[in-house]
């Protein structure tokens, strides 16, 4: 079976006024296997969102190719091979929670009964069955984001694209949502490309963390993480030694510190490192 996502030699250049241009992405190569969870992390302007948008066919690459399940990104979009969630939940305010989840199904001509059944199933999955008939403005930010995730799962995609979906949530909600996402991925078996700027979030969720740098956006390093085995990540993992080791590895890749021997390996050195927030990086 072909990879969920294959990015080869992709570049994206945005033209500016007066003939100037910004190189958002340069020569990106990345493959995401089916069922794999890959995070894109890096400082603002490193092109991580642009890369996600290229995969989603919301932008077209200036050079190189993007394939999703062996098709062009455009064909994959038309065939609805992926579900997508943004930082803003982006629910339609005039539709109930159920009607919002049904939107993609309705647009693609799924019958009324089927839509209702699928929406009920997804609401159950994200734990919002009691809120089926509410409107988005009656929900908290975390609940809205759960509805958006349920909506992205509506057509049982094999690939989920998520652009900082928990970025606007408070830390408590965020950790709970991360736990839920791990569970959802285990249940659906979908591959995920997840954009974030939180190192612990990337480490907790991912099989691999893609570390990117800005101007021009490039991949610095791909850090394999895969803690606790897919679907078995639990809250206790956030306090485990290997979690901190992986956080350190990603952080050092991000900051360009030589990190050849610590990556993903819990060692005395790593444990001895003072908690990363002392050094100004988000760890919780």
């Amino acid at each position, binding site marked *: 079976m072909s990879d969920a996502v294959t990015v080869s030699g992709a570049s994206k250049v945005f033209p500016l006024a007066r003939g100037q241009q910004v190189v958002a992405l340069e020569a990106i190569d990345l493959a995401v296997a089916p069922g794999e969870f890959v995070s894109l992390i890096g400082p603002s302007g490193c092109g991580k969102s642009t890369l996600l948008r290229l995969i*989603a*066919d*919301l932008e077209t690459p200036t050079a190189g190719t993007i394939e999703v399940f062996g098709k062009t990104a455009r064909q994959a*979009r*038309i065939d*609805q091979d*992926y579900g*997508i969630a*943004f930082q*803003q939940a*982006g629910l*339609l*305010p*005039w539709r109930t929670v159920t009607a919002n989840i049904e*939107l*993609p199904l*309705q*647009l*693609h001509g799924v019958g009324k009964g089927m839509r209702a059944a699928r929406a009920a199933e997804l609401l159950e999955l994200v734990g919002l069955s009691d809120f089926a008939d509410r*409107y*988005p*403005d009656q929900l908290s930010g975390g609940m809205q984001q759960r509805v958006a995730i349920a909506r992205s799962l509506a057509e049982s995609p094999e690939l989920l694209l998520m652009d900082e979906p928990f970025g606007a949530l408070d830390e408590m909600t965020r950790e709970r949502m991360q736990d839920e996402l791990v569970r959802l991925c285990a249940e659906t078996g979908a591959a995920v490309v997840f954009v974030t700027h939180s190192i612990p979030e990337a480490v907790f969720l991912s099989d691999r963390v893609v570390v990117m740098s800005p101007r021009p956006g490039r991949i610095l390093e791909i850090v394999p993480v895969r803690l606790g085995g897919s679907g078995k990540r639990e809250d206790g993992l956030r306090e485990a030694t290997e979690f901190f080791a992986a956080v350190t590895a990603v952080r050092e890749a991000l900051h360009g510190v030589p990190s050849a021997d610590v990556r993903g390996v819990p060692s005395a050195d790593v444990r001895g490192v003072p908690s990363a927030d002392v050094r100004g990086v988000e760890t919780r």
Partner: protein
Amino acid sequence: MTRSRGILSGALGILLLGVLWEGYKAIGPGDGGVINGLTVLPRANDLAMPHLVTMFTRLFEPVTAAPGSPTLWSAVVQAAGFSLGVAAVGWLVGVIVGLVLAVVMQRFRTAESALLPWVVLSQTVPLIALAPLVAGIGAQVRFGEARWQDWMSVALIASYLAFFPVSVGALRGLESPDRAHVELMRTYAAGWWNTLVSLRLPASIPYLLPAMRLAAANAVIGTVVAEVSIGLRGGVGRMMIEYASASSGDPGKPWAPIFGAVAIGLIAAGLVAAIGWALRGYRRGEVVA
């Protein structure tokens, strides 16, 4: 609570207007205060400014002294009903034309730059000049057996005033969805039509409702003015002209069709408010007025 307060302050406003009228009438100079042969203030005599009581009691007297003449209020109600019907047709046509224009302008950027200046320019043409022209052209139109009627000219002019706020408001509304929503529709591979129906039209409703209210007011004004200009019988516009000639001997009479026109305006605004209420589901998050 807030509702009863709204009604109360509305009633107070009307009362205040009445007090101002009668107050000026009590203290104002009857001949308007002539200085060097120039009248500097409105005349406060009974002919120019009849008492409110005169206006209201006149409503319950017959239209003319001729035997069998109906009461004034019933004549006004009939005329107002006629004008309201014509205005409603004009409003409906105006809203449809305005919506279609907005959709076309939203769909084709070039259409927006080509059409919008004309839409704005169209509103600078004086209505009085336009009305006889429309009636003149209309008189030559025939659909088989059916003839172009004068009331159609009036409705057409009403729609001409009504379409403008709708086209401008609807265009803003159609372009109001967030980029995130538009992109979401794109990821669903939803075409232009689906995006219009599922996203742009519902999103435009909070913009459309005030535009439709403006359109209703415009349609009423357009109807009354066009009735005068074309000379269409049966409505309050023509009635105003007819009764104004009686004002020297019967100062209360010309006010009756004015009250009629006000009533049409209120009913039209109320009907649009009812539409807004029916569409309240699309106005979530909007501050309830």
